């Protein structure tokens, strides 16, 4: 059974490119581009400060995106939604603002070994600056973080736990709610990197018990340069600004300033209102497609993909054997072939996959691999593409001279 969603995307028109790099960025449907064009063509003005119709409407479009995003992830008020450039900036905002102002010497920050570099480096910085300790949760080969692991690493000294919901390498889903409950009982705040989960499933911050959630619009059919940070209101209110300047103040004197209310306190300078209009349209689009259907398609395709790959004895798949534990992400190696060469020869067949360390070098080291190739799926991919991919994958060794 194939689907018709590819028709919604101009980029798939007139070619048969197989785009299996969705964990890096997703494609944007026409509806998202149209929403951004409509903003540009009907009300482009600097939002939040204008006293004329275009600016009022630009402000309305921007704030409507915030309300839609709040409802999308179950935030209690739209003030809890801060727009950023991407998930990386969202995580940096929490680290620089909450981290530096709350972490003291001897405190501990807990992350996991499978984190993306964007959820490692900001905490290395905080730990270094505040003489705190950065503690890693280890996972087994399948990517599972055991209960004993987080119960032994999260202690009374732990002030921050920051963890990804879904791994961009293994596709594994971490027990975020269980970890959050344990961490809260120890008095820590919990930050969830939702970059790989929010595009693929209904994520509700109340159900997750998350204090902060970071994600990017571009991985969920929205524009690049648009990210989200959710934070609980009482935590955000208590945090100093991250960047300072225009539109985040109440009063400025020569020596001092008072800051604007949430969420504007964290949105210095002219905001990406057109990007917000795009994010808003992406949320509408994903809701129309439906997360049940997204999940069903990804699971069905992943089963087919992994079953086909498992028939090729020289392929090793990272992570769990069960395709339903992969969230559409299949990271693999072909014996005797470097992932970059695999990606290069597949490119000549119109197949786009990622190769390298996937911004997760500590995990690569933990798994004992230098680099890997990764195919990652989304709801617009099809069984026909999976079959064609498998057929070409079976020829890679021959193309690279291995008999």
């Amino acid at each position: 059974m194939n689907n018709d969603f590819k028709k919604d995307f101009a980029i798939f028109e007139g070619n048969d490119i197989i785009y299996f790099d969705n964990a890096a960025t997703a494609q944007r449907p026409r509806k998202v581009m149209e929403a951004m064009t409509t903003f540009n063509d009907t009300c482009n003005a600097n939002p939040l400060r204008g006293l004329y119709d275009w600016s009022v409407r630009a402000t309305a479009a921007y704030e409507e995106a915030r309300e839609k995003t709040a409802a999308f992830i179950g935030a209690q008020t739209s003030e809890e939604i801060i727009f950023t450039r991407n998930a990386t900036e969202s995580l940096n905002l929490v680290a620089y603002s909450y981290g530096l102002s709350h972490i003291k010497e001897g405190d501990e920050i807990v992350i996991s070994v499978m984190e993306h570099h964007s959820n490692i480096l900001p905490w290395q910085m905080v730990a270094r600056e505040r003489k705190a300790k950065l503690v890693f949760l280890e996972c087994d080969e399948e990517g599972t973080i055991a209960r004993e692991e987080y119960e032994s690493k999260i202690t009374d000294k732990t002030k921050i736990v920051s963890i990804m919901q879904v791994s961009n390498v293994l596709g594994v889903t971490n027990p975020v709610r269980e970890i959050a409950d344990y961490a809260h009982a120890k008095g820590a705040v919990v930050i969830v990197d939702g970059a790989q989960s929010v595009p693929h499933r209904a994520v509700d911050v109340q159900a997750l018990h998350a204090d902060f959630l970071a994600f990017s619009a571009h991985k969920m059919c929205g524009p690049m340069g648009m990210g989200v940070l959710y934070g609980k209101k009482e935590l955000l209110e208590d945090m100093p600004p991250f960047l300072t300047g225009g539109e985040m103040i109440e009063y400025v004197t020569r020596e001092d300033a008072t800051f604007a209310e949430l969420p504007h306190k964290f949105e210095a300078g002219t905001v990406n209102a057109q990007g917000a209009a795009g994010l808003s349209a992406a949320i509408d689009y994903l809701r129309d497609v439906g997360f049940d259907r997204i999940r069903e398609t990804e699971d069905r395709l992943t089963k087919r993909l992994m079953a086909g790959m498992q028939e090729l004895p020289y392929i090793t798949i990272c992570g769990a054997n069960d395709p339903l534990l992969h969230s559409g992400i299949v990271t693999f190696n072909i014996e005797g072939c470097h992932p970059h060469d695999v990606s290069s020869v597949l490119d000549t067949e119109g197949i786009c996959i990622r190769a390298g360390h996937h911004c997760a070098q500590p995990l690569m080291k933990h798994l004992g691999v230098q680099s890997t190739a990764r195919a990652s799926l989304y709801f617009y991919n099809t069984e026909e593409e999976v079959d064609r991919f498998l057929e070409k994958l079976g020829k890679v060794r021959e193309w690279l001279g291995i008999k």
Partner: protein
Amino acid sequence: MEMKDLYREIVNEHNLYPSHKKDLADPTIVLQGVNPSCGDDINLQLLVENDTIADAAFNGSGCAISQASADMMIDLIIGKKTDDALRLAEQFMGMIKGTATRDEIEELEEAAALEDISHMPARVKCANLAWRTMKEEIEKLQKGE
């Protein structure tokens, strides 16, 4: 040349059956060249006598392009004066950047086959690794380090 043909005709042979992937008994200089982002890692050994590269070898791991480029480079530089090897390294990197002349490219002999890498920004570092490392080694020697 299309990428698959490039692999078939040149790269695979040097990658799978390299002539110079070994250790020298008594190298004058050994240097590690690394592309941290892809994990390419070569150890380039030169034996230099009277400003001439008397022998060279490499070891390490990485993608086929990085390994084949190292093997072809060593084919080219054995018996060359160090100054000539330096010049060839500049010419190779110029070729990858798209700034080398036809004559400069021809002088690279078999390594000239990698010219099309210049259209693949992601693979530039792989192709250049051995040449960059060789340049660094000769410069170290010439500075007397």
